[in-house]
């Protein structure tokens, strides 16, 4: 991806759309001392309006689909969507249910998929870095 250094700090917003908590706690683990993504300027923020990227976990349940769309719309452009986990990427084990409408890319456009059940924090960081590369490309195009 040819990214040697970050030109910007990346703020991410995390939305759980019915995940099992596995990916969510690994995202938190990525923030805490062993992995410590804040040293790269990657930070979780409390509202999508401040975010550069969305971290989406979970297979998207029926009531969350509309909220996911709304959060996506609230995130300012340019933005990247990172799906964390197997069930968000492909629906995984949660197929054939009356309350699951995912995977995530059926609801909002996705840029980066991080598979795994759950992915390791290293993989999540790699996913976010890939998103940074995409955002920098987008920013370059606009210039």
């Amino acid at each position: 991806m040819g990214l040697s250094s970050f030109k910007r700090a990346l703020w991410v917003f995390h939305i759980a759309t019915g995940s099992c908590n596995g990916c969510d706690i690994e995202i938190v683990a990525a923030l805490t001392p062993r992995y410590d993504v804040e040293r790269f300027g990657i930070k979780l923020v409390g509202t999508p309006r401040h975010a550069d990227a969305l971290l989406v976990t979970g297979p998207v349940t029926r009531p969350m689909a509309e909220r996911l769309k709304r959060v996506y719309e609230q995130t300012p452009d340019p933005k990247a969507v990172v799906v964390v986990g197997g069930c968000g990427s492909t629906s995984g084990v949660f197929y054939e249910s009356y309350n699951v409408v995912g995977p995530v890319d059926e609801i909002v456009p996705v840029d980066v998929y991080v598979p795994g059940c759950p992915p390791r924090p290293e993989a999540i960081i790699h996913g976010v870095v890939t998103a940074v590369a995409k955002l920098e490309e987008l920013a370059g195009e606009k210039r």
Partner: protein
Amino acid sequence: MPETQNVYEIPIGPIHPALKEPVRFTFQVEGERIRAVDVRAGFAHRGIEFMGMRRNLIQTLYLSERICGICSISHPIAITLAVERAAGIEVPPRAQYLRVIFSELERIHSHLLWAGVAAHELGFDTLLHLTWKVREQVLDILEELSGNRIDYAIPIYGGVRRDISPEQIPKVEAMIRYYRGLLEELVDAFLRDPSVAARTRDVGVLTPEEADLLCAVGPTARASGLSKDVRQDRPYLVYGELGVKAITPRDWGLEPRGDVYDKAVVRLLEVGQSLDLIETCLYEMPEGEITSFPKIPALLAHLKKAEGEGLGWHEAPRGEVIHYIRLEAGVEEPVAWKVKAPTYSNLMSWVPMFADQEIADIPIIAASIDPCICCMDRVHMVRDGSPATLLKEDLLRLSREKTERLTGHPSPVTRHGGGL
């Protein structure tokens, strides 16, 4: 001031304040005081039981692991116990000990996780990072033993899928020593800290009577002084022989008050209890088989012929998990499967706990039962763009300001808003 009705409605969630998972609260507030609360769950409802009743039992087992990533030993233990009871399968002794070891490792990781989240809700991020740093140690052991940090795939009908090898035992012992050396420091940081006490004492109280009537389970009930623990009261696996005693704040020399502080006491002491249990199991565990069905096709064939019903229960980190299953001969799917997760029983306890509390205390009270929404949902709509909606950052800010007010100096936390 004339007497007026100044009750406002504040919806919070489902994408929200204290928890990472979707759930919605609607508070009726008068000034800073909460008068009433309505909880709406179901946002994470995936219809797991419905799906399970359309898949064979091995697939259902994998599904049960994904009810909750934090309880990915507890649900499989409950479902395997239920199926083994229904199909008349014996579990080899070594496998019973191994299940106990894994479930206690899970308890340590879950309680430390809660302690960190609770510290964060209080605006004490240093403590969050400390507890999550030390939590990595138990995740390393779980990864060493199972191959994965989360979702371990250990229990299977008739036993467990992985043994603990003699070379791995010293690593587990080293972990036990590490936590024993550290526990005193952690307990000190939480329970003897004046600001933690100021924010958690007499906040979110659940009286023993309420806990009893509302059928609360796990640390939520034990913090109110009820000596209830499935491992103690309704023995299963080898817990009966291990002599597990339910931990209440009395073990810390305090009369239980049922507040957030007491819930922290119970959880931190249980980490020590789990260490003891793991150690005992490592020494007492007999040699032998780890499963009565080493071949999956033979297991599936046996399960297909089985007819009957069974219950399986387990004390998960958050309280009682119970699974009911019914099998019929000739069909691979269970004809009935019901999962009860601990948060399901504790949901109603939020109502008395929130009554007459301050808005700034919402995050810590919500977190105090250690809610696991994905477990329970297996929830409604916020009024679109309601101006009264509090952002998660606002809530954290309120919570932090309260800490500062109480301690009289700025809390050593990052001030730029961010949250988990």
